[in-house]
């Protein structure tokens, strides 16, 4: 087990290095942030002065060298735009995203579990089709549009909920729905196919022969086992959501890291962009690793096979 973890960590580090290098050079190919910071009547001298102030005058390889040295010491630089250490900015916004992602995942599970079970148990029937349709509705509607529609209906027209930003628990409702419905289909499909597998298995047949009611069989015995593979999906979705809820954060003015990343790209804020991507990658690798370990623990078949 320990070897496995170390191996994963090592691979993670290599990947990180690769990703960072790519982002470093890719970002700089897209233009100079200075051009976005200067006013219209700037002269060439103004431009040169600002480049110097921001430290962008060194040749590329030198900048990269400085960057690598700094990273190894834990210093990821200062944002051109915010003039604050990027690490500080990242961690001040991360909690906001972290507040909404679990809520969305839980909502998605609450919706996906009944849909998945019902469609597995009644496979091939009309109910199966209908459940499938409901689940897919979540991914069939572009995220931003759903959010804007929800705001229009529930906030502007009905006045039940606030339209945007963080604040009271009520503020969480619409963003959570927007983010969560996206995940329902994925969860539901997995639960359904897991359930199908298990419903056919020996121990379920045994439980039925023993005379246990269908409800008990399904909900008590099958569901628990069906949920195990869903864990891997948790890892994938979690990582993806934390780093990629750009659209939802934009629509709901939610000050998380998705929006931060978007601005870093648009404004060519290299230090921030690099830092965000590195942090994102670290987060994702950690989440995946934890999920894999958890999975191995819970599913004895895998643990023993390793």
């Amino acid at each position, binding site marked *: 087990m320990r070897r496995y973890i170390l191996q994963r960590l090592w691979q993670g580090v290599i990947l990180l290095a690769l990703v960072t290098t790519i982002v470093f050079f890719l970002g700089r190919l897209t233009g100079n942030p200075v051009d976005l910071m200067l006013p219209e009547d700037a002269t060439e001298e103004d431009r040169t002065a600002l480049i110097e102030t921001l430290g962008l005058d060194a040749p590329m390889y030198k900048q990269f060298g400085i960057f690598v040295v700094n990273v190894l010491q834990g210093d990821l630089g200062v944002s051109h735009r915010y003039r604050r250490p990027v690490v500080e900015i990242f961690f001040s916004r991360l909690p906001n995203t972290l507040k909404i992602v679990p809520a969305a995942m839980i909502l998605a599970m609450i919706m996906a579990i009944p849909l998945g079970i019902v469609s597995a148990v009644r496979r091939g029937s009309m109910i199966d089709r209908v459940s499938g349709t409901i689940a897919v509705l979540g991914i069939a509607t572009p995220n931003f549009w759903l959010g804007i529609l929800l705001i229009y209906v529930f906030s502007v027209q009905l006045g039940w909920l606030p339209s945007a930003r963080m604040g009271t628990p009520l503020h969480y409702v619409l963003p959570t729905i927007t983010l969560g419905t996206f995940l329902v289909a994925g969860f539901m499909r997995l639960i359904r196919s897991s359930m199908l597998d298990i419903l056919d298995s020996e121990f379920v047949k045994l439980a039925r022969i023993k005379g246990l009611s269908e409800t008990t069989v399904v909900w008590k015995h099958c569901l628990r086992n069906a949920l195990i593979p869903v864990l891997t999906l948790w*890892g994938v979705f979690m990582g993806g959501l934390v780093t990629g809820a750009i659209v939802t954060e934009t629509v709901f003015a939610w000050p998380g890291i*998705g929006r931060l990343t978007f601005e870093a*790209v648009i404004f060519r804020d290299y230090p921030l962009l690099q830092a965000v991507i590195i942090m994102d990658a670290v987060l994702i690798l950690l989440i995946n690793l934890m999920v894999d370990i958890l999975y191995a623990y819970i599913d004895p078949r895998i643990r023993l096979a390793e």
Partner: protein
Amino acid sequence: MLRNLPWLSVGIIAAMLFMAIFAPLISPHSPIDQSLPEKLIPPVWEEGGTAKYILGTDIFGRDVLSRLFYGARVSMIVTALALLVGGGVGLAIGIVSGYVGGRLDSLLMRIVDAALAFPTILFALLLAVTMGQGLQTIVIAISLLLWARFARVVRGEVLAVKGRDFVALARVHGCSPVRIMATHILPNVLNTFMVLLTLHVGVVIVAEASLSFLGAGVPPPTPSWGLMVAEGRGKISSAWWLSLIPGIAITLVVLAFNLFGDWLRDRLDPKLRQL
């Protein structure tokens, strides 16, 4: 088999393909010519509508119906190309990774893990600002989104097929790995691949819409359903037809492809756990 075909889904898909292929023939107007004085005309059944523009006009006076048809074409082209590139790469990597196994497999799957959870929208954005907005950019960007999913699922299938007798037989006969992968493994994962393709059409269409929202999608004035929804999103109460009509189109088509894909999966191999 024909009896159980999900007719509604197939019908919707066929309708979209028809619109896309025959757009130039069936569009009453040009999708990009502007007519500013005729802007924001509502659909024909609303007050103020006219038969000249059945589904109304947008802020430039462009015919929504024609843009819907041409938009189907753009969405279809983007989807086909993205699936070809992303799906193809994913298929290849999945087969190689699954069959060869060992360290290569481990490495590839780590990369897949990272790619799967990575904010691909971010990469799409970066690409858009580096390469400029355009068809190539969006195809590459969305392919990046797809390949990892395909690779992972295909690999899973390959692991199952790998252990079968006829593969061992081929190995004993001295067939080269490449030959085995091409002639024995590939045909047996094609079912999975097809299901994946249909299930991911929706992903591509919706991804394109999100990218248009962020300003990194198909550049104007070319119509695409995603761009139309993005452009009309600020006018929900004053000009609802601008985003609602393409929005419903997207939802219907994605639903149709997904239901068809689900049906396909059930027919071909219901135990496809990984989907």
